[in-house]
């Protein structure tokens, strides 16, 4: 058995324990120090992930391949950005505790396990490790009613989803006799084994995972949790776990259940259309920017699911490229949201952005870039995500999905450019507080990536292509 396959996860877990110890043993305030250590641990892990060898191990529980490496690197980048975004916010609010980076670290361990899992059991373990850490994070501002409410809501609904997932897993196990992806694929390649019980189990698995990626109709928790959770937690929630959960869903659908494409394709198509429609329409009426981002993320998940529904390698490649661009523009957008502070008070209303172009041109420009990118306007990175997704849809002949997709992207463009309108066209409000360096760094990095992605898309696309190839859908 090749135990070194999981070396990055093992190292990260050990780092987590060490950071926890440091945090407990030191008497003085260690939030900043622990955060920096966590970032260091992420970098170390990323290095191990990038240089590690591929293969399957732990009796088929765990696999390292180009797909998992791509997703893991993306998760680590997103988690690092999440920690950097939390630095200043947590200092200023009542969340200056070293447990914060440690929780993010363990959530990240869960995500790394998720994207490498090739057994329904290890999959569930990863999902739960992530979820439990994130429930606590959502309620981290414990003196704030909204945050506690968000945590509780997330926990209750999340547990229900975990239950659905577990129930689906047990059905799949009961009707196929195995939980290992490879063996499942083998069993299901014979049409005789496609029993109705198995399909029901599959649908439950999809439902459980759809909750984790907040796809309609399992999205109800998203707006409330996004709005209620402390903003850095929302920023984290909207990026890293989304990457991991989408990657997980892609792997589960493609490798063990790949032969049941005809069965789950319609489900994914339906979920995708509903997500895109809700993401486009429900966001229009929002006044709170965090809530708007919640609906926007639901819409983005809808687009990603088009790639999955296409059921081809081109589709999976599209999903991965979309995730890549999504992480950077989303992290950047949240950096801009975290910069919305006046006299020490965080602001969340879209109208608070009024005339930002005059008071802080740099931030305004970055915000505009992220909004245009999310709306899918070329030449920004978001356009390429959509481009490769729609390419796959067209190749698979999913015209309904493609047409609904592009039309909802026009509808959602309305609320994105409305934010730009508030920033650029409206009269100026009072200035925001001085931006902390950490926020500026993330916003600038996101904006640069989003703007200049079009110059060298080829290596990223090639990496996504290589990653999608191993799923042999």
């Amino acid at each position, binding site marked *: 058995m090749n135990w070194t396959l999981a070396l990055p996860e093992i190292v990260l877990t050990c780092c987590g324990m060490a950071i926890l110890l440091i945090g407990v043993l030191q008497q003085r305030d260690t939030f900043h120090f622990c955060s920096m250590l966590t970032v260091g641990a992420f970098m170390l892990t990323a290095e191990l992930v990038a240089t590690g060898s591929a293969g399957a191990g732990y009796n088929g529980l765990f696999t390292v391949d180009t797909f998992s490496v791509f997703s893991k690197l993306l998760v680590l980048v997103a988690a690092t950005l999440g920690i950097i975004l939390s630095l200043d916010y947590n200092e200023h609010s009542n969340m200056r505790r070293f447990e914060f980076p440690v929780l993010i670290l363990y959530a990240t361990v869960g995500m790394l396990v998720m994207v490498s899992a090739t057994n329904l059991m290890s999959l569930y373990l990863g999902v739960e490790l992530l979820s439990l850490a994130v429930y606590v994070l959502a309620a981290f501002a414990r003196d704030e009613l909204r945050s506690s409410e968000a945590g509780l809501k997330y926990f209750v609904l999340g547990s229900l989803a975990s239950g659905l997932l577990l129930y689906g897993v047990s059905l799949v196990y009961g009707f196929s006799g195995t939980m290992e992806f490879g063996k499942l694929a083998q069993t299901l390649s014979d049409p005789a084994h496609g029993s109705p019980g198995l399909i029901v189990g599959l649908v439950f698995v999809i439902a459980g995972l759809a909750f984790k990626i907040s796809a309609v109709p399992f999205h109800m928790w998203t707006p409330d949790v996004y709005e209620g959770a402390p903003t850095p937690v929302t920023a984290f929630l909207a990026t890293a776990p989304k990457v991991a959960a989408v990657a997980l869903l892609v792997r589960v659908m493609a490798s063990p259940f790949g032969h049941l494409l005809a069965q789950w394709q319609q489900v994914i198509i339906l979920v995708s259309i509903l997500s895109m429609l809700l993401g486009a329409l429900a966001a229009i009426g929002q006044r709170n920017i965090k809530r708007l981002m919640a609906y926007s993320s639901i819409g983005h998940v809808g687009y990603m699911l088009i790639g999955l529904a296409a059921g081809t390698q081109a589709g999976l490649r599209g999903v991965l490229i979309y995730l890549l661009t999504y992480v950077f523009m989303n992290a950047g957008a949240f950096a801009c949201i975290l910069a919305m502070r006046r006299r020490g008070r965080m602001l969340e209303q879209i109208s608070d952005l009024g005339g930002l*172009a005059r008071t802080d041109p740099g931030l305004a420009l970055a915000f505009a870039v992220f909004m245009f990118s999310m709306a899918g*306007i070329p030449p920004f990175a978001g356009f390429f995500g959509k481009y490769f997704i729609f390419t796959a849809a*067209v190749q698979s002949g999913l015209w309904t999905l*493609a047409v609904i997709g*592009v039309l909802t992207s*026009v509808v959602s463009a309305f609320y994105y450019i*409305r934010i*730009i309108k508030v920033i650029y066209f409206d009269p100026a409000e009072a200035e925001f507080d001085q931006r902390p360096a950490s926020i500026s760094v993330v916003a600038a990095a996101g904006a640069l990536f989003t703007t200049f992605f*079009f110059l060298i898309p080829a290596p990223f696309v090639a990496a996504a292509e290589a990653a999608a190839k191993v799923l042999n859908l």
Partner: protein
Amino acid sequence: MNAAGFPLLSLLTWLPLVGCAIILTVRGDEATVAANARWTALWTSLVVLVLSLVLWVSFDPSDADFQFVESAGWLPQWGIAYKMGVDGISVLFVLLSTVLTPLCILASWEAITVRVREYMLAFLVLETMMVGMFCALDFLVFYMFFEGVLIPMYFIIGVWGGPRRVYAAIKFFLYTLAGSVLMLLALLLMWHVAGTTDVPTLLHTPFPPAMQTWLFLAFLASFAVKVPMWPVHTWLPDAHVEAPTAGSVILAGVLLKMGAYGFLRFSVPMLPAASASFAPLIFALSVTAVIYTSYVALAQQDMKKLIAYSSVAHMGLVTIGIFTFNIQGISGALFQMLSHGVVSAALFLCAGVVYDRIHTREIARYGGLADRMPGYAFLFMLFTLASVGLPGTSGFVGEFLVLVGAFKVNFWLALLGSLGMILGVAYMLYLYRRIIFGALTRPELRRILDLSPREWAVFAPLVALTLWMGVYPSSFTGFWDATVGAMVERHQAALQPAVTLAGVLPR
């Protein structure tokens, strides 16, 4: 390498962004920044203009193929490349863009007083997008420029526009975006069939007729909004009225040509069968546009709105010309596009001149300007007459050629099309009479000043172009004769096997 010996088209496209970078580095108080931004933008656009004259001089009109082609790998595995090149159809539009941009910057010299730096940045970015769009020889690259235009234009209308600028900007953005995204799907389907987005390759890829229909409809959705054709023209009057003068100029001068250029570059040559079978629909929409919007123009109280509606009518003639599929029609459409680019730009500048002085666009607030502003009255008359197509001005040549082409297709089409010209005379002369003639009664007009030297400088090239195009049109048509000839030939060749199937066939 190409005829110029260096990547001329890329330089033309990306040079304005260098100007942007310089403007961004300017520091100092607001007045310094504004002055520096103005001068930098002007010089950048003038350098681009001079470079584009190199293109004008070294372009070989006898060659029907793409020239100055440059190519670089971009997404090579997917048959997508960064490819630039011009042929007879696009070369003059590159020049139109590079000529109008410095004029726009000059026209905004005093009119724009707030956020000058951003304004100049927006115009330079816009120039990059426009030039890049006309040069792009890869469909995806074209699409990126085509949509990228929305970004600077959204800001130009929304930040420096009139009272209803937000409504106009958002309407403009969403209308155009809604059309373009359908074109994106068509692009993807073409890529799926041909395995590349290279335009010269696509031009020689036969698409199955059933697919052509869908592709054509998707293109129509996109280009019809841009042209704009009736009934999706309603964003235009709003956008024109609310945009600052220079914004209207560039919108009428170049942006409206993007749709017609799209028809000529993609729809007609790539989808010959569908183009032929949809020609009656295009004719119907165009004739409706010509007649209906002319009547609407007749009823306008707002100067810019009137000119905007007249643009819709003129562009109706352009689409008629394109879909006649004969040399006269297409040649006329191209000429009309260029002429409209110059004349409507000049008319919006004329509207801007008095707007800068009196700050109203309402026609009724003017009258008798001939007394105080003889120079202005003269220029306005010249452009009015060019707009109605007086022989000797640029407007005549285009309309005449289009109608000749239309006659070859259908008598009634030509008749109804020429009705638009008569109505055009009516609303333009009516506009001119109300603004320039009559008694000067309003007190605020008594101290109005005639054109300043800066304004003369803005108008001079437009006057020269209008007369040059009217008096010696072959120096312009010569550029595209070979290309259009080849295109018409190819179109007819493509239709030969399907003679009995096609609904409308040019003789």
